[in-house]
């Protein structure tokens, strides 16, 4: 561990002042790490696999995967053009659009859930119109996807916008000179060059969608197999069977660590 030796040397050279950095850091790292360790500690028992593989746990896992991947697909389809426009075009109300993209990221999920209810609920702003079309969103899997989209799609758009922004304008001009139209430019130059940003943005959106809880429980309710995703199963299951909740949590932590590792790798190869 050359890093550790360097740290020790650094402390030896600088004396006690270093502790002003090290101690607070340790406190925070402990605070962040201990709960996860405790979760794994409690999960290690003979029942782990039977609990993680129980029918209701698997049902929640299946629903989580289906809805979050749908969310990612819709996000990429709708978010890529938007990110491109935000990065390269000038249009009226652009700053409004930017704010709209930034807002859900910092909005509490319960606010998101309530907003979705008053917009798309049966008595919501568009509830009557949707009802005419025979669509009632609350308590459906579609509502789960919409809740996930609302809170997680902006993450992708933000990442993609930055990715597009980083591309050298001269490259675009060159493509223009070569006679490429807007669509060719996007498909042949911008999309491949921003590829890594798009992928890491999509992964961010996926993790956020997987973890979505507050907006889902308010807007979509809780029914096994229809709207009960993993976070809901953990929250509502912890009093039924703490073991199942812990097993599910460990699965989610595992998936999250894996996702982080992949994004890191992508970032590294990028640089």
């Amino acid at each position, binding site marked *: 561990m050359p890093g550790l030796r360097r740290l020790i040397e650094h402390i030896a050279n600088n004396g006690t002042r270093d502790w*002003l950095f090290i*101690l*607070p850091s340790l*406190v925070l790292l*402990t*605070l962040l790490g201990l709960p996860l360790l405790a979760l794994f500690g409690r999960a290690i028992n003979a029942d782990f696999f039977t609990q993680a593989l129980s029918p209701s746990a698997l049902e929640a896992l299946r629903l989580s995967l289906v809805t979050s991947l749908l969310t990612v697909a819709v996000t990429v389809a709708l978010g890529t053009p938007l990110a491109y426009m935000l990065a390269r075009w000038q249009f009226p109300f652009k700053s409004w659009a930017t704010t709209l993209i930034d807002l859900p990221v910092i909005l509490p999920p319960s606010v998101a859930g309530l907003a979705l*209810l008053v917009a798309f*609920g*049966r*008595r919501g702003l568009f509830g009557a119109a949707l009802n005419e079309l025979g669509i009632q969103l*609350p*308590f459906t899997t579609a509502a789960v996807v919409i809740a996930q989209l609302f809170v997680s799609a902006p993450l992708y758009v933000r990442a993609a916008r930055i990715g597009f922004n980083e591309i050298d304008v001269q490259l675009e001009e060159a493509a223009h000179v070569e006679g490429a139209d807007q669509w060719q430019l996007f498909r042949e130059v911008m999309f491949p060059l921003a590829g890594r940003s798009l992928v890491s943005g999509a992964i961010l959106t996926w993790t956020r969608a997987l973890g979505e809880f507050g907006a889902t429980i308010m807007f979509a*309710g*809780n*029914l*096994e197999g*229809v*709207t009960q995703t993993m976070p809901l199963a953990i*929250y*509502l299951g*912890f*009093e*039924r069977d*703490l073991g199942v909740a812990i097993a599910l949590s460990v699965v989610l932590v595992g998936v999250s660590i894996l996702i982080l590792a992949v994004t890191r790798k992508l970032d590294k190869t990028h640089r």
Partner: protein
Amino acid sequence: MKRLLSLLFVFTLFVAGCAPLATPTPAPTESPAATEVAVTVPPTTAPEPRTLTVFAAASLKDAFTEIGKNFEGAHPGVTVALNFAGSQTLRTQLEEGAAADVFASANHTEMDNAVKAGLVQDGAARDFLTNKLLVILPASNPANLTSLQDLTRSGVKVVLAADTVPAGKYARQILDKMSQDPSFGSDFGTKVLANVVSNENDVKQVVAKVQLGEADAGIVYVSDAIAAPELVTIEIPAELNVLAQYPIAALTQAPQPELAADFVAYVLSSEGQDILVKWGFSAIQ
């Protein structure tokens, strides 16, 4: 020096964070009801500020908020911190080490679980009220429900409390009873359960979903309907209903054992019972 101080501050926070789950202590309220409350413990000349933490079933929200205010009025310096949730959530929180003085459950199951976990002394719990259930509908009654039989109509959106929640357990017991009644038919319960679109984590969330008009019907306590008078109700006949019995007990690890005993006594007193009756519960005697 400044940095050292801030470091100390961080450490204090950390140590404080290690203490058992503390409940937020709202500022002690003035005591408007003090005059009309029988004082069980004479107020001392210089009351030390104390906090009594009460974990109570979600259905008790309105009644216990009032009881808590009165109790504060009769006990200068005492703040009653109330934590409302489904009884099963409260019991789990207590098992995981949440510090509380009093536990009021909406059924015997969770109180028995608390006894088994050593949180409550065996035999210490006392029933303090009974409750019944009914069906609530949004004021607009979007599904045009007029009878209990209508609950089986396909497409009716029914919301129940989850089967771990006392109100959810009671609701399912009632559906079972109705299924044994020939006038409803043996598949009544199955059909209603097939109409369930969401299993909520406590009974107040069932009320909220119906109030919002998202659900067509919910099965909740009579007391919940009293607290939300704008809702339409369909009564469940007594022979098909259940008698929900709520037990209350001071916890063995209560940080304020004397106050806890006082609070339980106050809930059981005629004054406490009057408040409960006012909020739609039935007194135990």
